[in-house]
């Protein structure tokens, strides 16, 4: 899946450019409207879909599990603190949801990595990721699944 932009609705405000965590929403040089420059790098986080004040961004589903006629659309009303979803299934069934939107201020929960301690060589070569295992809120080592518990004859 990846996002795409309805050009008639987009007014080139730049909110999607600002919020995209993959940095793939950019401004087209010919018409100054938003465009997903790298659809295969889109992780369908819906950040841009929700941030767009003109509802100009939609997500295209893969044909194998979301063929023809489905739709997932969002209306974000920040002054009310609501985010509404309309899910339309391909058999015509629709579902509507309303949720509160996050009120976290910009940048407040972004770790300031440049101000942190420089990792040692051992930490760099470790299998552990940043803040692991402490950040996972677990004691000791990462949990593992023993290979002999795998189903035989099934390959993943």
């Amino acid at each position, binding site marked *: 899946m990846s996002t795409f932009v309805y050009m*008639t*609705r987009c*007014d*080139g*405000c*730049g*909110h999607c*450019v*600002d*919020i995209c965590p993959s940095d793939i929403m*950019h*401004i*087209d*040089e*010919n*018409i*100054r409207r938003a465009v997903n420059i790298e659809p295969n790098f889109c992780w369908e986080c819906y950040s841009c879909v929700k941030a767009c*004040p*003109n*509802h100009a961004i939609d997500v295209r589903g893969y044909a194998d599990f979301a063929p023809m006629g489905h*739709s997932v*659309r*969002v*209306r974000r*009303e*920040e*002054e*009310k*603190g*609501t*985010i*509404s*979803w*309309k899910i*339309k299934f391909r058999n015509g069934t629709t579902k*509507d*949801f*309303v949720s*509160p*939107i996050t*009120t976290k201020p*910009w*940048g407040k929960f972004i770790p300031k990595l440049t101000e942190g301690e420089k990792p040692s060589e051992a930490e760099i070569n470790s299998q552990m990721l940043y803040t692991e295992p402490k950040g996972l809120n677990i004691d000791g080592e990462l949990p593992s699944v023993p290979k002999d518990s795998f189903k035989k004859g099934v390959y993943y």
Partner: protein
Amino acid sequence: MMSINPYAALAETISPLAIQGFILAMLALIVIGTVVQMIHHKNVTYFFNNAKKAKLTAERELGVGEKTSVILKTVVHDIATTAELGVGKRRVAHVMGMYGTILFWVASVVLVFVYTGTGTAAPTIWPMIWHIGAIMTCVGGYWFWLFLRVDVLAEAHPWYRIIKADLFVLTLLACATFGLAWSYTQSLNLENRWDDKVFLILYILSNIALFGGVYWSKFAHMIYKPGAAIQKNLAEADGSRDNLPPYADAPKQFGLGIKREQPKHY
């Protein structure tokens, strides 16, 4: 300067018919550019297909009266005040540039066709409208182009980076700027010096670039954006809403909401 018809002095050296012919040629360029763009980009086909799709998912059929009311409301609220841009500097700059351009163009047509070479002096109001229109276009346009343009504001590109999408705004700004400079140098009584002629040539060239570049530029957004606003509001009224959810009936526990920030967190 503000109360002088800049075309009146020009009519002493160039036939008024030639000036009128130039304006008609520019109108023809707009029509040709828009029609070729419509055929090539299939914008109108897209609009009609979208309207058909919306009709299929409509929850109720709108009567002629309701449709007219929605269209009128869209014209007054959305189009006349560019409501699409929300509240903020972009909207103020756009409204200023939009009305400035309309005043500038309308006054140009009136001054050339009614008061140039006809022996009737233009009443002060029309040259005033021409100059005020050009000044408003410059203020709104330069504000937008230098500071508010999305490539500068959200993408953090430098203001001097020029792309194809700038063709419309830059040629429009060139028209207004060179038009004002031409009018100003004319008013200085420089006794047939080169100054006003240079600005006149630049004014003519920027007009040719603006109207001749309709096919490649964003000129047609003046036609398509109002069309899209009407289609959007009709879709809201008939319940199809482009598959969007209805407006939320916000429960109290959702809090007071948040304030949208400017997209400049690069």
